[in-house]
């Protein structure tokens, strides 16, 4: 009998893998394998017109952070590369903090409506999120350009006489990123707020806690998993952004995504571009590890 069981479970296992493998195979071909190619390329040297020469070298990796002196071969911290890395980090961190400052009260507002209205408010958060990212970025661009509606209104009302240069600044990039990724903060924070036990707030209030203390001592600590999940969800796409700096930052305020693209285009330095890509991935992995250790594990249980 045991052997019959074994045969049956073996055939069940075969069916199972037959069903799983097409999806896994497509992801391997379309995402995992290309990434492994990039890993390989990061240890090679650049070819003369793009491409790579097959000689082992750690040079690309060294250059992520250091400049090699042409004469005496000494390494110094690379100004340009560090500046771009630092700007990307700062802009995406600023975006995350701003999203949290704006998103938390909004999520709280939605979570404290009555259940029917909540659905409507949530729908209002999701509609912009489902709208094409490029189009939302164009909308911001139109709004803040020198001849845009904000500057026009400010000039007409006499607040300013010259248009304020907002487009093609770090401010514009940050604004665009907040605008595009805000729903990714609101939704998980809302999810963790909505689950909270209202009676805790009543108890605190009965014991004469002031609203701010209730917020600080009860609501925020309980919403921590949602806050972390939202922050990671905003931070990861923000640091890897490619489109926003092009549209809102002009040519001058590059972020790491654009720098990577440059290496594969005009820069013709595929190994360095590969190393930069993997450095970006490493930052993302660190963020994901934070999420796995402290973030919202609810809804991610296996099965």
């Amino acid at each position, binding site marked *: 009998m045991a052997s019959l069981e074994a045969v049956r479970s073996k055939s069940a*296992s075969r069916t*199972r*893998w037959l*069903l799983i493998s097409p*999806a*896994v195979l*497509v*992801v*391997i*071909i*379309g*995402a*995992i*394998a*290309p990434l492994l*190619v*990039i890993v390989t390329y990061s240890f090679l040297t650049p070819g003369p017109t793009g491409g790579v020469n097959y000689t082992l070298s750690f040079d690309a990796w060294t250059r992520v952070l250091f400049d090699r002196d042409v004469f005496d071969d000494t390494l110094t911290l690379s100004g340009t590369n560090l500046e771009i890395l630092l700007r990307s980090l700062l802009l995406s961190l600023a975006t995350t903090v701003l999203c949290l400052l*704006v*998103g938390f*009260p*909004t999520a*709280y*507002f939605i979570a404290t409506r009555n259940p029917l209205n909540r*659905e409507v408010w949530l*729908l209002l*958060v*999701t509609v*912009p999120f*489902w*709208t*094409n*990212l490029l*189009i*939302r970025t*164009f*909308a911001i*661009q*139109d*709004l803040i350009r020198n*001849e*845009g*509606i904000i500057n026009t*209104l400010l000039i007409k009302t006499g607040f300013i006489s010259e248009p304020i240069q907002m487009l093609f600044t770090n401010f514009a990039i940050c604004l665009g990123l907040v*605008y595009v990724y*805000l729903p990714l903060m609101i939704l998980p924070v809302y999810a963790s707020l909505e689950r909270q036990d209202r009676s805790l707030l009543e108890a*605190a209030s009965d014991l004469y806690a002031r*609203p701010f203390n209730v917020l600080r001592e009860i609501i925020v600590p309980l919403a921590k998993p949602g806050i972390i999940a939202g922050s990671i969800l905003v931070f990861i*796409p923000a*640091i*890897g*952004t*490619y489109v926003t700096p092009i549209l809102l930052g002009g040519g001058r305020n590059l972020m790491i*995504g654009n720098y*990577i693209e440059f290496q594969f285009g005009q820069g013709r330095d*595929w190994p360095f571009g590969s190393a930069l890509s*993997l450095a*970006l*991935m490493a930052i993302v992995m660190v963020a*994901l590890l934070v999420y796995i250790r402290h973030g919202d594990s609810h809804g991610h249980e*296996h099965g």
Partner: protein
Amino acid sequence: MAKAFPVTHQRGFGTVAITTFIFLYAPLAVALVFAFNAGTSPAKWGGFSLRWFQSAANNQQVISASILSLKLAAISAILSTTLATLAALAMSRTPRFRGWTLAYSAISFPLMVPEIVTAVALLVVTATFRGWTGYSGLGYLVLAHTAFCVPFAYLPIRARLQTMDISLERAAGDLYASPWNAFRFVTMPLLFPGILAGFILAFVTSLDDVVITEFVKTAGQDTLPTYMLGQVRRTITPEVNAIAAVFLLISVALVMCIYVVNQRTKIN
């Protein structure tokens, strides 16, 4: 003594929330309104007109880019939803088996890699393959889009499977339904909202993509997003606003679609 406010009240949160909603909608509203502007200024109203819709509809590049976008989104959404459904059926509601974590990590892999990294990696690989095989058709774009759509299609389907009552299928089996009939008449109808949500999510994700498409495409393979990105360096005409208005309408319709299906088929 009656309390002045309910216990949930936090001063200023309402104001921030309302401001946030204005912030979310004002730029889109302005773009929408100025799509109907007769003038070319992004700030001065020159009267109502449909000229930008007409000029977009007569622009050959816009037409072919729109067709390619929709074709690509439809093909990759169908493919990724099918693959994701099969995988989800095999991986949900079963005791954990050897290789589960590996399969799950593989399927959610595209979600964890920054788009630009996947894009340059695919650029390198497709450039090499084009050189080797001479083939430069739509296949590369279809494969790339299907791959990054798989996790988006997978998640809602799995979520639906997890909330489904397995005893219904057992009951069908007890009443001598063949496995196929049990699947067709019990599992499938119950799973349908999840599949639809997965399909729509995959469709929108493909339609929305600009970075990966930009790096994988060859000449003449512009989708609507890559076409618009290409227009950045030139002066922006309200034509883009007209395209945006249409896109906005599509996304509102799709969100409503999911919302209605979810409301109607809520599992209690």
